[in-house]
């Protein structure tokens, strides 16, 4: 946890101290890389985001690529849409069969399934 206005050097020192405690060492010539910053904000929204609202504004995603894959015994081999996860905006809907590629994983949307991107950027796949 970092207080407001704290200099970067302090954050680095705190990181090194925690690294030493947990892992028994620090890297003498190591450089720090910030891979994520989490910010918490508190406040009141004007209105609640309802499922209706999400569904009304849902739109079909545009695939980045197509690829032939084996889907299942019924659908067999066929060309399916491939989406890059980083380009999917909230409220996008994708009907399977399709593939979503993320940096660290590959997601199959089954032949009769539907993927929905929530307002928070999560994926919900409804299995049929």
């Amino acid at each position: 946890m970092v207080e407001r206005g704290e200099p970067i050097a302090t954050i680095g020192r705190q990181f090194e101290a925690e690294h030493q405690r947990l892992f028994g060492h620090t890297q003498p010539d190591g450089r720090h890389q910030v891979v994520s910053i989490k910010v918490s904000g508190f406040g009141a929204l004007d209105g609640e985001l309802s499922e209706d609202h999400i569904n009304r504004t849902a739109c079909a995603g545009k695939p980045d690529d197509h690829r032939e894959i084996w889907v299942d015994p019924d659908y067999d081999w066929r060309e399916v849409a491939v989406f890059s996860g980083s380009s999917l905006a909230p409220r996008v809907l994708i009907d399977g069969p399709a593939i979503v590629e993320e940096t660290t994983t590959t997601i199959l949307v089954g032949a009769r399934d539907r993927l929905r991107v929530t307002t928070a950027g999560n994926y919900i796949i409804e299995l049929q």
Partner: protein
Amino acid sequence: MDPVLLALTQKQLDHITRQMGWVMMKTARSPIFSQSHDFSCFIGDANGAVAAQADGIPIHTGSGGFALRALKAAFGQDIADGDVFLSNDPYLAGNNHLADWTVMRPVFVDGELFGFSCNRAHQSDIGGGVAGTYNPAAREIFHEGVRIPPLRLAERGVVRKDVVHLLLANTRCQDLLAGDLHAMLGSTKIGAERLAALARDVGSRQASRLFPNLLDYAERRMRAQISNLQPGRYSGADMSDHDCFGAASVTVQVTLTVEGDRLMFDFSGSSPQIEGFKNSPLANTHSAVYLAVATFLDASLPRNEGAYRAIEIIAPEGSIVNARPPAPVGFTTTHPAHEIITACWQALTGAAPDRSCAGWGKSLHPVSAGATAQGSVFVLYHWLGYPAAGAVAERDGFNVLGTVNTLGGLVLPNVEDLELAYPIEIRRQEFRTDGGGAGKMRGGTGVCYEARQLVPTETTFRDEASRRPSGVGVLGGHAGAAGTIRCRAADGTMIATPAYGTVRCGPMELCIESTGGGGWGDPLERDPEAVRRDVLDELVSPEAARTLYHVVLSSDLALVDYDATNRARSKKRFTTTMLEEIAQCEISPQESWPAHDMRVSPRPSSQSKPH
């Protein structure tokens, strides 16, 4: 000593080694460690006996005591609180091979040496003739990399920078090695802190008796287990058909004597040491034997060096299992460790057939080294093309679990992580059809692995598996299928792959069919329903179901036709019995085995007997 305290302490020590492993996984730079865990953490007592080795890879830890005792022999009383030591040499420091660096941190409690917190880890590169630690052209250990006798890496809490600089001057992967070395220092520091805390918790009077009691208990358990084996003399053998420079017959031969509560493994009769880098130094041979025994006997046996007191090993000097310097040993932890383990399992089978372990497939996955887009050197092991495990009485072999020396302790990398870390695209990793040796329990299938290397590499081939089946079956089980390896350049031309050798390649596609594991027991005794499931999963072809398992399935594969299956199996049993009777009248019974003879093991009736 309180048995409850003793049991808890062994678990705590084991847990400390696991925690050290997590530190290494979290903080090491090389994907060899952070993704695949090619390292092992262990704890030794003040005399240098391994007391806990729950983390990592058994071929590493089984010989950890050799390195600790070499350290003690080198430094005697000159070991202080805050010191840390390093070694890698098999001849000077009790290690397996130069690639595995062993960091050993003494732990002091109330001013007395209490034990050692250790991490042995396979480095990305250690100099030598080829990037990536495996130089198949090596004819001397000097061709394999930097040699490190027991060396003081840190003195009273301060890392010796000049020593670190010397080490970094001897690697092609400075950034990786610098980071990994400090991760090793960190993991042993965490282990040392936990070990000292444990000693303080139980009090100094109890603490001094902890290790002796744990080792003695393991010894008693092991001796009790051995007493249950059928006494006698049994033999086992496994061989390689290549000495790294050409065809050769290199045999690991063992005679096991089971007598009372002790085992003696005598390797007299094994081949002399060879010119290539598949020689075993003494520490590695001991580790391989311990692995074979530990896997063969009860899983609840404590795994510390006390258990090994009941095992005597005779390894003639100058042989493949006790090479004299300066013989190269770079590939030792895989081969001949594999041959040693298989030979020991075969011999042990005579003493307890029900516990038999079918052979694991031998390896042929290459190592590729090249430059990343940023210009640093990468070293990539094609572990996704790992071989399969053999079957045991309780289960089919694992389909892709790795070389037997790791026993699954090496983690197969996640495809996406691998593609992020290296300039490579993984196209396929799929279980083979008919790769697993047929048996009552089926051998693991092996995998079809296809990868595209996107940049030029120096690729080192180490093919021990394509020329004949190597995952041997037991008790009538068949051997797994041999492996295959093919490389195709970007322009479509095939690249000739040597059995052993390093090839400079442009971007290319690599296709491996990894080696299948051996089957356990007679295929005619396999549950027909298990055969049907295997056919549905395409692990076994319909043809093999019919001709090897003699199982008849309905045309839609939905049902087993039990009547037809029983008829087919009865007929097969009758024919086999007749053939065996005829074979006994022939001069060379080996030649009269029926079809698939390359892959058939003797059935229980003709199993080796005590002699």
